[in-house]
């Protein structure tokens, strides 16, 4: 191995690590606030990448129908619930807004010249289609189970994952897809070539992580989400509803997932079922952080990316095994250092 190969591998490792870090953060965020282990996070990644690819090829992404359908179910549930208590003007406006949003997107997708749009608009359209799926997913599958034991939540999470993979096959077909890089030029750093997409991935990831950090530390909405994670009843007594917190975290997870998909789509070919293994590596990072510490999870994820890249060079056949074995020493270390804490709820 010479310096050039090492920098190339390091570049790959860092790119993947940055994505895993983003995914690890969303897994942690969703888990601490809602106790749900978000297995379908990977599907947001593939949906993001494949929708972007479809838009660039000028094909209809089909996702707009899924969004419209789920929004209709969501809204009829809302209306049913209101019919049982009493109709409330603000809530009715909410229903109208949601339906209007989904309908507008369907119209946009069917009238715009998708392939000719500037890349920024394509990205926005992709995010606009996918992010709302997050809160809807929470509303339909998890909100009714808010008080269920963690195991039930995990089982439902797996079920949602499986059905989303199926939906992905239906919407995008079995072919893999790649998208155009954000910009074409490369950079020379001494004798090595830096791919521009690598820089994009790293910069955008760092930007997102820092923004999230500031939002959580400094804004009252971020504090409200943390408060829900710390003490659910305490938060409810202040009017911070767990439903609100759940929807916001799922929206964030959907945003981070699909943004990651859009970021890596020019580097890797993604298939309808590639999401799981990607988010699993983010999960390894989150485990390294003990499912509580955000900075440790981010560092762990970058380590996962590095180990993956370098094992590709030395033992490419064992790449995945090496990455996932990484979890074992950490689990042992965790179980030795942490003592059992009583559930305080």
């Amino acid at each position, binding site marked *: 191995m010479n310096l050039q190969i090492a920098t190339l591998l390091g570049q790959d490792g860092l790119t993947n690590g940055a994505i895993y870090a983003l995914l690890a953060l969303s897994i942690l965020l969703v888990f601490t606030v809602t106790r749900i282990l978000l297995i379908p996070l990977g599907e947001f990644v593939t949906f993001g990448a494949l929708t972007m690819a479809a838009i660039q090829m000028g094909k209809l992404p089909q996702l707009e129908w899924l969004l419209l359908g789920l929004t209709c179910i969501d809204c009829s549930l809302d209306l049913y619930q209101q019919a049982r208590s009493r109709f409330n003007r603000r809530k009715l406006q909410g229903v109208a807004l949601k339906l209007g949003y989904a309908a507008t997107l369907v119209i946009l997708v069917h009238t715009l010249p998708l392939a000719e749009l500037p890349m920024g608009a394509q990205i926005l359209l992709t995010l606009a289609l996918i992010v709302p799926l997050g809160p809807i997913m929470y509303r339909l599958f998890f909100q009714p189970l808010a008080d269920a034991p963690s195991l039930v939540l995990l089982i439902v999470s797996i079920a949602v994952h499986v059905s989303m993979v199926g939906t992905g096959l239906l919407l995008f077909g079995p072919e893999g897809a790649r998208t155009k890089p954000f910009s074409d030029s490369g950079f020379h750093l001494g004798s090595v070539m830096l791919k521009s997409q690598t820089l994009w991935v790293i910069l955008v990831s760092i930007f997102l992580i820092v923004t999230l950090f500031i939002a959580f530390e400094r804004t*009252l909405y971020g504090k409200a989400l943390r408060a829900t994670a710390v003490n659910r009843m305490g938060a409810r007594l202040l009017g911070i509803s767990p439903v609100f917190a759940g929807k916001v975290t799922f929206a964030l997870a959907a945003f981070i997932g699909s943004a990651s998909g859009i970021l890596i789509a020019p580097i890797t070919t993604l298939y309808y079922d590639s999401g799981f293994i990607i988010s699993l590596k983010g999960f390894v990072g989150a485990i390294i952080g003990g499912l509580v510490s955000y900075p440790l999870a981010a560092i762990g994820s970058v380590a996962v990316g590095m180990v993956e890249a370098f094992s590709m060079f030395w033992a490419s056949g064992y790449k995945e095994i090496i990455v996932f074995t990484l979890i074992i020493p950490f689990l042992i270390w965790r179980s030795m250092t942490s003592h059992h804490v009583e559930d305080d709820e």
Partner: protein
Amino acid sequence: MSTQDNKLLNVSDLHVAYGKVEALTGIDLTLKEGQLVTVIGPNGAGKTTLLSAIMGVLPSTGTIHFNGQDFFSPEVETLVGHGLGLVSEKRELFSTMSVQDNLLLGAFLRYRRGDTSYDTTLAEIYSLFPRLWERRHQQAGTLSGGERQMLAIGRAMMGKPKLLMLDEPSLGLAPLITREIFRIFADLRRQGVSILLVEQNARAALKVADYAYVLEGGQVAMHGPAADLANDPRIIEAYLGLASKHQELLSS
């Protein structure tokens, strides 16, 4: 808004059961706008259960009329939105967050509705409880018992509730601070905040309250103007007697 318009809270025929065991059997309770009403009673009488049911934390049957609306086994968030606040017996602080963050979160709904005057309330609370100001960057979980009480009360006040319900706010506080806290309740009442106060310290509670209920075994055993109850021989015997005997012992 007609005949009931100065009744801020009216609970009627409230039943709460833990499994098969009835903890409250048909409670009727009324609190008028601006009043300070206290609920006293022995351990296990159902005082905490009563506050939790009014707050929507526990499912109940019966009607809860609050601020011009009827609620049937409502959600906690709905009632908070309508101006009800509770300092629960467990305090429910955010233990890994700072004192200041705990206080700010008390104003979450005001912030969400675009009310930006909560900074003034924060300053008021810091001047009421200078101890909280000194400890504003400390994690709530590391506060002393008394400081935790102050934080819980301050956090509830940040929301500017129409009706503030307090479950044993003087529990574990030094006598000096207890007196201070009761003085704050009297002040709040003068500012027009209505208060429903559950207390073990019956003497102090009856002194500040306008009206009082005595809860025993899940039922209202007595109720009346606080001054009357304070002079009622049965109350003196059961709830105030111990203290006066204590004083006799001390003085002899």
